[in-house]
């Protein structure tokens, strides 16, 4: 059952994409060729797309992890008990497509933030509002993913803080003369980061392949890789399809290499803590 539902679809999908990209199958196939690979890998646009995907992923992950770590190191118990322990889960109930819609309606030139700025006399018209969505730097995409990622990491770190008995290490550091800030920065934060590293990497890779938010909040000249591949696949030009598959395979190869490089052999051992049987049960 595992092979049929998890392994076979992957092998079939990647195998078909590879065969199509090499001209071995498909409506316009004329036999083995590397032309599509040369075209895609030789185009600056593809590498710009990869770089933009990596940029969005890294900025989102660093911001979300930094903010979450700051909150949890400063107020570890607040997110485990009381009303915040419930409300912090609320943003996780918002699907990516809805979050993208909310961010668009808030940060676009005609959005809520622009209207508030107008009412406060900060701008005199919507044309003065800076472009925060469909922009060059992907601010809108990063904002949407940050709003989903930060609560996730707050919950994750708060549970790790409790389950890994970080409090005891912090108390020990305080007893040995460390200040509250020193204990948070030098003891709690490194411990949490070390334990959460595989999850942070996987989340970063997940953001890199995101589709919904970039579709709504991105721009044509600066696309993320999922959007590029699927747009090429859905165009009426049949010549674009092998290129879409090249993009899929190349992206998969890059992401897999990154995962292997960053997670290495110890990744799975540490990932156990996310599982239901690990002590991080509530995550």
């Amino acid at each position, binding site marked *: 059952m*595992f092979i049929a*539902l*998890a*392994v076979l*679809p992957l092998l*079939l*999908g990647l195998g*078909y*994409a590879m065969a*199509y990209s090499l001209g071995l199958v498909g409506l316009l196939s004329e036999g083995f060729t590397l032309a599509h690979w040369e075209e895609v890998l030789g185009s600056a646009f593809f590498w710009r797309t990869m770089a933009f995907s990596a940029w969005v992923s890294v900025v989102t992950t660093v911001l979300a992890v930094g903010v979450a770590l700051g909150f949890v190191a400063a107020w570890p118990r607040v997110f485990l008990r009381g009303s*915040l322990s*419930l*409300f*912090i889960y*609320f943003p*996780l*109930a*918002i*699907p*990516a*497509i*809805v979050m993208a*819609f*909310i961010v668009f*309606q*808030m940060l676009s030139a*005609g959005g*809520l933030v*622009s*209207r508030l700025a*107008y*009412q406060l006399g900060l701008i005199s018209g*919507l044309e003065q509002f800076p472009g925060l969505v469909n922009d060059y730097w992907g601010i809108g995409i990063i904002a949407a993913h940050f*709003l989903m990622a930060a609560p996730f990491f707050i919950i994750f770190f708060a549970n790790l803080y409790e389950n890994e008995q970080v409090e005891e290490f912090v108390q020990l550091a305080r007893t040995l003369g460390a200040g509250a800030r020193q204990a948070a920065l030098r003891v709690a934060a490194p411990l949490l980061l070390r334990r959460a590293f595989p999850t942070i990497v*996987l989340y970063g*890779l*997940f953001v890199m*392949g*995101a*589709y*919904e938010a970039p579709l*709504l909040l991105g721009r044509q000249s600066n696309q993320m*890789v*999922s959007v590029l*591949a*699927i747009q090429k696949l859905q165009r009426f030009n049949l010549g674009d399809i092998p290129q*879409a*598959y090249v993009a*899929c395979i190349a*992206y998969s190869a890059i*992401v*897999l290499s990154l*995962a292997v490089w960053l997670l290495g052999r110890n990744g*799975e051992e540490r*990932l156990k803590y*996310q*599982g*239901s*049987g690990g002590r991080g*049960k509530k995550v």
Partner: protein
Amino acid sequence: MAKRLLKYAFIALLLVPFGFLLMLSLGRGWAYPEVFPRQWTLENWHFVWGAQAGLGRSTLLSLAISLGIAAPVTLAGFWVSKHIAYSRRRRFWLVLAYLPYVLAPAVLAACLQAFFFRAELSGKVWGVVLAQLFITFPYGVIFFSGFWNEQMRAMEQLAATLGGRPRQAYARVLIPVGRGALMTCFFQIFLISWFEYGLTMLIGVGKVQTLTLKVFQYVGEANIFFAALTGCLLVLPPLVLLWLNKRYVFARAGAR
């Protein structure tokens, strides 16, 4: 006092997206530079039950797909993960289970689209269900991989020593012990399916109109009020599940 105020401010911040969605779903005419809609009405919500917008149908379809996937995948994940967890190649199988997420579900769907066309499953509900199984089932396996530890193995062996058959061990020992984890897994798989857009759009070719597709359709039509209304319909079940999870599953786990 200041800490409490900060806490309430943080909660208010977390509730802003929900208030904003609700405001737009109840609004009509939101001309610049007004902060609030010109007119407040429940009329948009009446469309949920009207046949014209098809929102009621999309809600039921999304519910049917997500519930139809969550229940069997939870049970299958529970059963299969046990065999994987106790196998010698555990690490290898688990790495394979992570791949659909690492490679992005939308990219996986793009690679598989041709097979669904050939099998005439493209644009069909069953096709979308099958495609969603490819990402939810590995998640179920990953979820339970940590559940099967030495303690579980010892409990199962004890049941066998006392004369219980494997089926009895599941029914009387493993499933009752894992009830909390089973519930949580069910909720999470429901949410993965409920939130799914890219894969559903590609395999369903826009014909399987789940709620996530409706949001995008209304955004494309520049109908922000219906998009917000559909957004409200999408966030409501996860909030209910969240409350149930907190109220019953975590509370019970805490009591133990």
